[in-house]
Each structure stands twice: as structure tokens, then as C-alpha cells.
């Protein structure tokens, strides 16, 4: 058992020989926010899926909240996960959906309802809580997914594009919520394309490209590395450009319709 909230060592995932994630090692201390950046199809979602036991690694090991990722029954009690597609049933109302998730976590209805009401209110969804999710906007649906990932107070929460599709006010609520979580010693693994959010929240930023972790540092350090201007966007573009230039020859010979990489691209672009 490590002292890190997330510790991965040589994590690798291949789909039919094609690497989606290659020899990824990282360590995230408890109570911090780890910003996980990368171009579309870089391997972010595959990495997160391996860390939450949804996908079995081809090689390597990892522990989340001190639990090996091979032990799903123990791990699921310690984590919260928000996939890129909010995991909701369109036929249910927001309240019913959240109560369903609460029950999956073994939380009795009375206790769950109190917390659901508070969180729905915080995310400005309470007035619509009895409407079917099918009638919600993209942002409202995502908010329901975020609440579902957080309300059982996990030790580690992994969020895949949590602010995508949210209006500025809702995005601010999510960022404030993440900042609050960290003060409660929760660890947040945050994958997003909204660089200002990462800049504001992350203690450490990891950049993954072509399945490989190509940079890892605090935001200020990454920004300082940028040649053109000292901001995270420039740093990200320069890091991934450099990587792409090195791998361009290799990439030319690769078929795009391969395994999980393409699946990941599709799900991200959708």
C-alpha cells in the first residue's frame, strides 16, 4: 500500500497490439487535484477506465485510495467516477436517478434523500428534480452525473470532462465544488479540455499524448516551460506538437480504425 491517493506503475493498455496507453506511471498525493490533459484520443479515458476497474490493463499495476485496481469490490467503496457520457437513465427523474445510485452504494433512502436535496439545490436543479432527465439540457444532465459521482463522499473522484456543455455559472459551481472537495481531503483526478479550469484548480498537471505521459508538473512550472508565452494553452500545444512531430512518421503508417483508440476518439468527439 502506498501513501498516494493514486499510484500507477507501468500502466499499459493495448487493443489488438495497438497501444492506447503505454507504460504510464504517476503518483497523486491525497487531497490534491491532478489535471489530466491530452488531445482527443490520447488515452485519457482509457487511463481513467483502468483506474476505476472498468478496463483491465494489459500490463502494469495501480492503486487508487490504497486499493489495487484488481480488487473492484473494495475499490468501488472508495471512488466516484463521472464518465464523459453522463451515466443516467433518460426515463427517470433526477431525484429517482440519484436515489438509484444511492441505493447502489447501499445508502438508505432517508439519508440519501436529504443529501440529494441539498446537492440538487446547490447545482440549481431542485426545481426540475421531478422532471424526466430526457427533457433536460446537456448541462443539466451532466450536473446530475456530477452529483451522482460525488454524493457518497468518495476518497478519490475521477471526473472525465465534468464542465463540458455547462454554462459559465454551472461551470463555476463545478469548479467551486472541486475546490471544496480538496479542502475535505478528497483527491480529484480531473480530465478536461478547459485549460483555465486546470490552471485554477490543479496542483499537478499531467499531459498524455499518443498513450504516453509526456509531461508532468505543477501548472506554474509547465507554463514557465512554454517558449512563446507563459500560459497553459501554449505549454500544452508546444508539448503535444513536439511529441506529434517526433511521432509523425510512426503515425502515418497507423490505421485509424484501431481498437479502443478510435472508440475513445468517437466518444470524445460525440
Amino acid at each position: 500500500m502506498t501513501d498516494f491517493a493514486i499510484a500507477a506503475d507501468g500502466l499499459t493498455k493495448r487493443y489488438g497490439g495497438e497501444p492506447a496507453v503505454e507504460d504510464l506511471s504517476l503518483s497523486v498525493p491525497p487531497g490534491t487535484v491532478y489535471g489530466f490533459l491530452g488531445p482527443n484520443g490520447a488515452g485519457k479515458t482509457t487511463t481513467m477506465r483502468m483506474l476505476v476497474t472498468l478496463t483491465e490493463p494489459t500490463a502494469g499495476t495501480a492503486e487508487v485510495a490504497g486499493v489495487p485496481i484488481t480488487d473492484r469490490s473494495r475499490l468501488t467503496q472508495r471512488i466516484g467516477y463521472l464518465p464523459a457520457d453522463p451515466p443516467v437513465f433518460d426515463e427517470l427523474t433526477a431525484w429517482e436517478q440519484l436515489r438509484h445510485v444511492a441505493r447502489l452504494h447501499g445508502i438508505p433512502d432517508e439519508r440519501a434523500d436529504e443529501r440529494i436535496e441539498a446537492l440538487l439545490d446547490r447545482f440549481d436543479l431542485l426545481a426540475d428534480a421531478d422532471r424526466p432527465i430526457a427533457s433536460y439540457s446537456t448541462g443539466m444532465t451532466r450536473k446530475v452525473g456530477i452529483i451522482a459521482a460525488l454524493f457518497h463522499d468518495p476518497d478519490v473522484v475521477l471526473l472525465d470532462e465534468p464542465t463540458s456543455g455547462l454554462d459559465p455559472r454551472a461551470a463555476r459551481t463545478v469548479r467551486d465544488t472541486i475546490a471544496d472537495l480538496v479542502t475535505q481531503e478528497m483527491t480529484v483526478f480531473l480530465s478536461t479540455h478547459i485549460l483555465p479550469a486546470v490552471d485554477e484548480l490543479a496542483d499537478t498537471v499531467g499531459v498524455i499524448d499518443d498513450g504516453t505521459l509526456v509531461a508532468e508538473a505543477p501548472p506554474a512550472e509547465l507554463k514557465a516551460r512554454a517558449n512563446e508565452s507563459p500560459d497553459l494553452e501554449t505549454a500544452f500545444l508546444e508539448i503535444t506538437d513536439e511529441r506529434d512531430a517526433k511521432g509523425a512518421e510512426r503515425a502515418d503508417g497507423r490505421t485509424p480504425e484501431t481498437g479502443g483508440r478510435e472508440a475513445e476518439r468517437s466518444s470524445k468527439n460525440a
Partner: protein
Amino acid sequence: MPENSPPATDRSPSTTRSGAGSQGATANGRFRDIVPSPRSSWEIARIDLIRGYRWVRNQDLWLAFTVVVGFIGAFLLWETFDAARNVGTQLTAGGPTPTWLVTATGILWLFLTILLAGDGVSSNTDLDNDGQYLTIRPAADVVGGMLIAAASKFSVYTIPLGLVAGAGLAAGSGSPLPLVGMLAAAVVVVVSAAAIGYPIGFTIKGVIRRSRNLGRLTTVVGVVLGLAYVTLSVTGELLTVVERLEPVLQAPPVAWFGHLALATTPDASIDPTGALLLLGLSPLAVSGGTVLSVPAARYAWLADTAHANDGDDEELPTAPDRRVDAVLGAVCRAPATRGIASTTLLRAVRSPLQFVFVAPPLLAAISFVEGAVTSGTVPWYVPWFVVWYGAWAAGAVIPLNPLGNQGATLPALLTAPARGRHVVHGHVTAATLVGAPLTAGTAIGAGYLAGSSEAVLVALGIASVAAVVGSATLATGIGSLFPRFEAVSLDASRQAVPPSKRAYSLFSICLSLIVVAVAFASDETARVAGSVLLSQWLPFGIDPSIDAVTALGWVVLVGAGLAIPLAYRTAARRIEAYRVD
């Protein structure tokens, strides 16, 4: 420049032309708003038809349905040809023109008009892509496209029918002329049905969308109408309805469709006035219907859908209090089991499309009901058929795809502390809560009508519950091994995830084997029949005795008994260890 004046560069050419030109443009615009442009309408229809074709081509369920309908259609067309040939022969021999031909054509027109009105109400006439068409073309063009597409789709039924009927009459009368009248009628019937049915459908749709109560009742009304139609069919009352309608169907203008169909048939002694009037008036009726469809469509599309929370009620929602949760609270200890069962039931009620996949065997039930109504008796085996169907449906409708049914929420389920056994318990509980009372009630009712003894009625009740529980458990085991995640489109906007073909087949075979095994173990006639059939089917001259067949039945039953806990264990482990790769 006044603040509200548009900048000079924003002025379109029409606003800078002379007043007469401007008025001409406005008049042209108004005309375009109410009369579809044939070119644009055809383009919209063409895309709609291509999309429909590709949609069917990629849906295995609909392909199978098309094949089945094709076979039935081929049979009916052959019957039509035969009947038409006989009519042609009789007419040539100087016989009278059968009045039922005119009635049948009128019924076809009426039936198609009702169907097309229903199509107009359905989601088939919803605007795709957030109504993007309306930002490109006038609503009239979109309506025109929909009408052309609808008429083209439904002409798949009328044109072959007209051609075959015409060919039959031609064969009987020895003249090709009947083909002309029949084909003309086939076209006029479908085009006029679309032009009359669609504005009615659009108007009803607009009313439903504006009404909170009607919006809620749409599904119920649809089910009631469907049940009414099936009831009328199986009880033979549909013929009574047709008889009552006969005066209308034999009178102008509905009778003119039949007159047009027979107008070119030699010796048909049909007054050509009706046919000529129909040909003359049809373009007017179709144009009128099309023009009327435009405001009707706008009325439907531009409705602000009434929501349940419309009104002055400002109270914030509170925790939902569902009766199903109270019932589940009494039978489920673990919150996770209660969660799975409750969600499964709520989804099934709110999106009942899943039930379509277990409907086909009910076609057999129609013949049972028809036989029972006409003979006044229920055969002894019908209650047992009900037990088999109830158990099969309870397993196939939901538990047969426990992973695929989760859809986008599968990651949430797999990353929650709920265990595999909770998922199995939840699915079996949901299937049992609905399936067991329905199956037991129907089986006992059928048993009572069949004159079964009290002991048999009790046995039917116990067997129903046991069969539903066992079947649902077996289904979760098979379904967890062969999950399916791809949804099937049931219409333009509704999707459901059916079980995989392998799961569906394996499960159905298992249940059918169990039924045969029960028959072998319990009934001498079944054993004798089984022995004879098996000796014919088995290779190498194997000739099983009646005792061997009995033993085989018991072996299968013991195997089924063992398969249920094995399926439970398999499902629980499989779900718990499932990975999304």
C-alpha cells in the same frame, strides 16, 4: 440615422426594389409559404426515403419483420390474383359484378387514411435535427416532402396489390385493360389517403402537444385502440363493423375508388361517371389536402409542449414516494437490490418498447382466443401454454440482458459497491413482481374456463410463480454471458436494447426443452408421440422406447433444476467482473 434603422449594407435586394417589385416578392413569398415547391419537396422526400431504407437495412429486427411480412404478403397477393382471376372469368361469362370489390377498395382507402392519420400523429412527422429544415426551406416544402415520402412508403402496399389484382382480372377476362384501372386506383387511393390523413394527423398532434392531459394519455389511448382492433378481429366483430359501414362504402365518393379500379375491366358494367369524377377531383383534393397540411403541420410543430409542471405551482419537488418502492421495501433487504428492481420497473413502465420483443408468440394466442370465442370452450393445454409464455416473457423482457439494459449507466453500476448478486436479485424481483401475478392470474382464469379441477388450478398458480422465478434467473445467467448494447430503433425516435440473438435463441430453446420434458415426464400421449418423432429424427437408426423418453424427460428436468442455480452463480460473477473494453 434612427437607432432602429437597419444599416444600408444589410438591405436585401428586395427591400431596395420598387414598390411593385416588393409587392410581387411578398405575394410570391406568401404563395411559397402555403404551396410546396415540387423540387424541394421531392428532395426532402428523397432523403427521407433513403434514410428509411438505410435504417431498415441496418436493423436486424426490422429486416426479419420485413421478411416475415414479405412471405405473408406474397401469400396474400397470390390469393388476390386467384380471386381476381375468378372474378374476371365470371364477368366474361356474363356474371354480375361482385359488390364486395367496390367495398374492399373503399375499405382499403379508409384503412390507409386512418393509418396515414396515425402516421401524421406519430414521431415520423417530427422535425429532425431540431427543425433545421425550417431554417432552410418554407414549412410548405417540408410538408410536401413528408407527404410524398408517406405516399411512396404506403404505395408499397397498394401498387403491388393493384398490379396483382389487375393481372388476375386480365388473366380471367383475357384482356390487359383491367391493369390500367387497377393501377390508377392503386395510385389514387394512396395519394388521396395521404393528402387527407396527414392534415388530420397533424391537427391531432398539435392538439395533443398543447394539452397536458392528452399528452399523458397518448400511450394509453394507443394501447386501447390496439386492443380494441385485436378484440374486434378475434371476435369476428370487425365484419359487423364493415357491414355497418357498407352503405357509406358503397356510396359516392368512397365507392368511386372501386369504380375506378373496375372501370377498364371488360363486362364489369360499372358506371364510368364516378371513375371520371374521381380522376378529375383527385388532383383538387390532393392539392387541397396538401395546402391544408401546411398550417396543420405548423400548428403541430410550433406548439409549446405542455409540461406537467406548467402553471402557478411554485412548490419545489420533494423526494418521490412511489408505491413500487413501498412494495419493494417489503421484499428486498439490500438497498442495491431495491434500487435495481425499482429502476427496472420504472423504466419498463415509462418506456414499454422492450415489451415488443416478447410480443410475437401472442399472435398464437389470437387463434386460442378466437377458438375459445367461437367454440365457447378452452382446451386443457391453454392454461399451461399461458404458464410457458408468462415464464418466457418474464425472462426475455428484461433479465435476458442485464448488462446491456444499463446503457450509459453501466460504468456507474460497475463502479458502485453493488455486487453481482444484487443485480441478479433486482432483475429477478422486477420480473417476478410483474410476471408472476399476470401469469398466475391468466393461467388460473384460463384453467377455470377450461373446466380444470381445483387441484389443477392450484398447480397452475404454483407453477406460474415457480416458472417465472426460475425463468428470470436462467435468463440473467444466459443474458450476462451474451450481452447486447446496440439499440434497435422502433420508430424514428424511440430505441430499445433487445437481448442478443444468441441469448434470445438459447433461452428460448432451454424453455421449450423444459416444456417438452415436462410433457414427456407427465403425459403418456406426449411420450408416445415423442418416441415416434425421435425415432424418425435421430440418426444411426436410434429408436428410443417410451421408457427412454420418460427418462430423457426427467434428465432434462433435473438438468433444468441444476441450471437455475448455475445461471444465478454465472450471472453474479460475470456482472461483478465485467470489463468495458
